[in-house]
């Protein structure tokens, strides 16, 4: 039982990172219909930004702050202006292909231009272990989970409680009516891209101490975040949270009790079962098709 609880809680920590990445993915999809196949690399790049900034002598705190700014400019603004805007009118497929190309370029650009070796990364949370009734928690897992949860909840509060957030939701639901109501649609869409970049940078901060900064670290992360988003429900931003935690926990439990070799297939299995029985996702509402 203690084993089970331990696996469960460390699964929650991993799952909360999936949830962060999945949330950004869901927001991009809702606001602009962009499926970003470079989402995993959007976590990898900030990790390397931080590694470089730390290498130049900055403290982790400043390195992270600066990385957020850089991410918003490069992964938010530049990505939108340079790639999504010119391709938007051609439909989904060219964007899918271009983001696939982008992920290949980013991964291998870092490999060739920086290093193919995994780069060490400082611990964000103190290296302490708690013992509660025989179940041990590491401060890293607890801190990761709490920090990611706070970010997800803050993002949701921003979307639901502020005028800007509600305007962004209006754009996601119906772009034309939003623009008739005087909402600055392009700006709201840019905000979505910016939030996605911030969430990705935060995920990088949380995931890199355990997984190390490596050029291909985004590969599994991106796919699992997609699955998490769909499992939870694409149309609901809370879906990303539920999906992320579900995937993280199931993966950990399956690796321990079923087969460690097939850990990476767990997300796919849940995804297939969910779309077979509840295609709109666990929390999603059924969407009418637009003609």
């Amino acid at each position: 039982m203690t084993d089970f609880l331990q696996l469960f809680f460390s699964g929650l920590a991993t799952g909360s990172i999936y949830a962060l990445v999945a949330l950004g993915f869901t927001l991009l999809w809702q606001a602009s219909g962009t499926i970003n196949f470079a989402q995993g690399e959007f976590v990898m790049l900030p990790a390397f930004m931080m590694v470089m900034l730390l290498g130049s002598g900055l403290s982790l705190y400043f390195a992270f702050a600066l990385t957020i700014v850089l991410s918003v400019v490069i992964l938010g603004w530049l990505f939108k202006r340079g790639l999504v805007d010119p391709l938007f009118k051609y439909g989904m497929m060219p964007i899918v292909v271009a983001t696939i190309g982008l992920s290949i370029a980013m991964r291998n650009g870092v490999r060739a231009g920086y290093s193919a070796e995994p780069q060490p990364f400082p611990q964000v949370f103190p290296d302490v272990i708690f013992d509660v009734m025989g179940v041990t928690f590491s401060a890293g897992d607890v801190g990761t989970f709490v920090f990611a949860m706070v970010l997800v909840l803050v993002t949701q509060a921003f979307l639901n409680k502020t005028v800007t957030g509600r305007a962004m939701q209006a754009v996601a639901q119906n772009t034309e009516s939003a623009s008739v109501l005087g909402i600055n649609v392009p700006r709201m869409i840019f905000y979505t891209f910016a939030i996605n970049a911030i969430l990705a940078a935060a995920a990088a901060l949380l995931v890199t101490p355990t997984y190390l900064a490596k050029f291909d670290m985004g590969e599994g992360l991106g796919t699992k975040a997609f699955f998490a988003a769909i499992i939870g429900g694409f149309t609901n931003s809370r879906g990303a949270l539920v999906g992320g935690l579900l995937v993280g926990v199931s993966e950990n439990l399956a690796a321990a009790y079923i087969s460690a070799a097939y850990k990476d297939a767990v997300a796919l299995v849940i995804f297939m079962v969910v779309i077979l029985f509840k295609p709109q996702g666990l929390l999603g509402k059924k969407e009418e098709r637009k003609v």
Partner: protein
Amino acid sequence: MKKLNLLFALVALAALVVVPNFLKNYGIHMFTTWLVFIIATMGLNLTVGYAGQKSLGHAAFFGIGAYTVAIFLKAGLSFWLGLPVAALFCFVVGLALGFPALRVQTIYLAFATLGFNTALWLVMRNEEWLTGGTFGINNIARPSLGGISFDGNLAYYYLVLGFTIVLALLLWGLLRSPWGKAFTALRDNAIRAESLGIDTRSYTLLSFAIGAVYAGVAGGLYASQVQFIDPALFTVGASIMMYLMVVVGGPGYFLGPVLGSAVGVVLPEWLRFAQAWYLFVFGAAVVVLMIWLPDGLLSIPDRIKARRQSRAASAARAAAGKGVKA
């Protein structure tokens, strides 16, 4: 346009029959690889280009075909039994995978196939008793038929060429039939196709499963060609390469895969100068190509035609305008 296509196809065919005679082993190997990828991407072109589904797990079916044939040959069974079994197996797996994914949204198929590719790769790597694990399967035999041995590289090349032509003609026939028209109709407007009485779900599912069969046959031929297979050949990365071959050639153009596979097989050779930066250059080239030509290389003639027509139309308008003034 039709005549031009036919002429191009005939010239290309003549070149494919004659040229390898003058090539050394490496050249024959490149040509055979090209043909294998033409078969695989023809299937993917049916799924992606004609039926409009996004499949990012084509290398998984390619792998199923390759491993099925290799395992059959290792068990002492005939290649001519292994290849149809591989094709049938791919068809069934394609149906099983496509059924849940295609019930929802087209983009779900992309994720389902992507995840399936990863899962299958894990099977290839972990189930050593069947697949040889990371060591793969080596010394895969080449087939013979009715006393003709395809052991030599050139002989095997002609066998693959024969398969390519037959499969291309089958696809051509399929696309010209009412069935094929239904595929295109549902790509262009799924809701309209549905209201015309086309059962979109079973057609998309079939297009996906038939695409998988082409990949399986190509994989089986590939296993005998290279005589050594391991899981590294069938990763998600390989699937993405095949998808890009279709997109670069021009999805929905019958000869798109011929061009796309040539680019995909030859490009790594061209880009050798870039060394470590090769894949970076490749990825960046894909992004630039998409922004410049979202419909692929074979859309260039159509684009020129459209531009000429619009220029002619505006000239006509200008002339008409003058006529009114005068």
